[in-house]
């Protein structure tokens, strides 16, 4: 179950970033990173992480809102760590690296207009994300961390990653209820 679900996550994020399906190599490396990266294994998992990842899995079109929100207010969220991991994989792999190298083939005036437009769109997305996710975040804050960070130099703990997945795979409705229960340590 774990590899399939990570593949689904990888697909959602890749489509979001470059508008294409990930290559088999990127998907394999995404899975491998979850199994062996000590930093990812040590990432603390909070209620907000569970809710935000659950949202992304159930409603892939909301990934932009989650990205905008975590970029501004939750820089160390697990979902952001996963997005950054995927960015790093896309930038070192062919053919996706070209998406990071190639500027828009247009005039400088048009490019300036595009940059302004994308900036405005980004601000609007952030406002919408704040409206939707701020209340959820507020509910999650104050709740204990579900998994505390392990020693970052420890040998990778695959079980922790599976536990992370098990939590993130729970439906949103159930998670909202879980948020009021005593904290579990994964």
């Amino acid at each position, binding site marked *: 179950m774990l590899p399939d679900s990570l593949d689904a996550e990888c697909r959602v994020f890749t489509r979001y970033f470059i508008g294409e399906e990930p290559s088999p190599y990127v998907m394999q490396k995404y899975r491998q990173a979850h199994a062996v990266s000590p930093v990812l294994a040590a*990432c603390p998992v909070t209620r907000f992480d569970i809710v935000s990842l659950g949202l992304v899995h159930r409603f892939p079109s909301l990934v932009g809102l989650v990205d905008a929100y975590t970029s501004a207010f939750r820089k160390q969220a697990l979902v952001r760590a996963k997005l950054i991991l995927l960015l790093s994989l896309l930038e070192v792999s062919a053919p996706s690296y070209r998406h990071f*190298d190639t500027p828009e083939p247009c005039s400088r005036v048009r490019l300036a207009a595009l940059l302004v437009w994308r900036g405005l769109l980004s601000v609007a997305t952030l406002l919408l994300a704040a409206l939707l996710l701020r209340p959820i975040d507020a509910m999650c804050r104050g709740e204990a961390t579900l998994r505390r960070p392990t020693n970052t130099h420890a040998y990778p703990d695959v079980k922790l990653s599976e536990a992370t997945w098990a939590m993130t795979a729970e439906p949103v409705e159930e998670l909202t209820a879980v948020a009021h229960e005593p904290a579990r340590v994964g």
Partner: protein
Amino acid sequence: MTKILVVGSGATGVHFALTALQRGHDVTMLDVGHTKPRAAQRIANFNELKSDGGDPARYFLGEQFESVVFPGSETDYYTKYYGVPPTKSYVFKKPAAFESEGQGFEPLISFAQGGLAEAWTGGVYPLNDDELRPFPFDYREIGPYYDVAAERIGVNGEADDLGRFYPVHANLAAPLRLDPHSEQLLGQYQKRARTLNQRYRCYLGRSRIATLTKPKDGRGGCVYCGRCLWGCPALALYTPSITLRECLRYPNFAYYPGTYVSHFTTRGRRVESVVVRTSDASDLQSIPVDRLVLAAGTLCSSKIFLESMLRATGEVVKLRGLMDNRQVLIPFLNLRMIGQAYDPESYQYHQLALGIEQEAKEEYVHAQITTLTSAMIHPIIANVPLDLRTSTFVFRNVRCGLGVVNLNLCDRRRDDNYVTILMDKSRDHTTLYMHYIPTPCESTIIGQAVKTVTRVLWELGCIVPPGMVHIRPMGASVHYAGTIPMSAEVQSLTTSSEGQSHDYENLYFVDGTTLPFLPAKNITFTLIANAIRIAERAF
């Protein structure tokens, strides 16, 4: 013929050893000597490696994805300073026996074969007579050794406007091909040079770089593959392990890696032996010494000396005068380069340098200008204050115009700043402790320098994004010096102009410990030249 024991295989150790070997001495080198992992050595540019069917994620990100800069992991030892790639992480690996802590000072220490310069960016800048004034010798004395050092390592550059700050030594090869962004900046400077020189006392020109432009002595010339940081596959970018290999060809050279030097023992005013811990034996072993040369780098050489003093006298000594260059990173965006495509076939490190003249000439402010060519870009994208997708869009359209000015300030020896050792009686070894307090006027000096650079960049058509200037912590520049300085007067905890200890007559220091002043320029070239000078003059 003398038997010489050298500790450390960094830039100073290997060049001292090579000169001593050429002069017929027997040299034994003791070194922890962590070795370089095997990595892709075939000549292919940055992007070709991503598409050649190999395992690019392993090469660029590491077996355990340790080079992915996750949010919050920037506080990690490596990423904080360099975002060191997997192929270079061995440079900063420490042996279990070595511990350090600091207040106001966060150093990088290396136990690798070749030392810290295995991960350097190759900037070579000779000191001039203004900067050498606090030294017990002048340019006439060290100049010939700069020539030898340049011949050995291969230096390229140009006699241009920066010649007023860097003496033009012999063996200077023609400069590398400029990347389009650096070329554009230099062109802009040449159009506005007079204004910039007069209004800001600022001069810009080609960097001096320890990179071969043509093949020489088994090394290739630069192939513009953009992989300098990952380890030059052509060996065009100089690293000290190249000279170590040259030393190994001499029959009168013995190299012992896996050897951690703890301290030396003394009898009267002489060093009798060094005490080492080897990787294949848990007990300490003793090696007799004829003449001992410490070249382990300022901090490690200081620790060996301090630990030895402690064992000889029972006294914990403070070595005062620790210096390091304060570094300030000023990112900029060249508006004229926006929307242009980036060329992956470029030299990766800095190709331009900038100097700002000061009233006191030795306080000259030095800067290197690195335009963004090949690099891991996800850490940059993650730092743009927008969502990651928009940041990616913005980044790829402005990528070609991005760069960073790395500003260096000089430092002087002050009693407030020292290294010593802390003893923990429950353990059998000590901890190196560093203490550093900047001068009260430092923030004013930094502010003025940043303002000048920002205005100069504006004149060149660049903007500095607000809030992006980063003052790096002391220790980040890796130019440590001054703990046992050269002194014309014979006094304890100093050396002669030939690096001979005034405390123990058969002990020599050839690394940064002996510098009495730290100019703003990168010191590695000067340290190499000085090590050759000492080997010739004192042995």
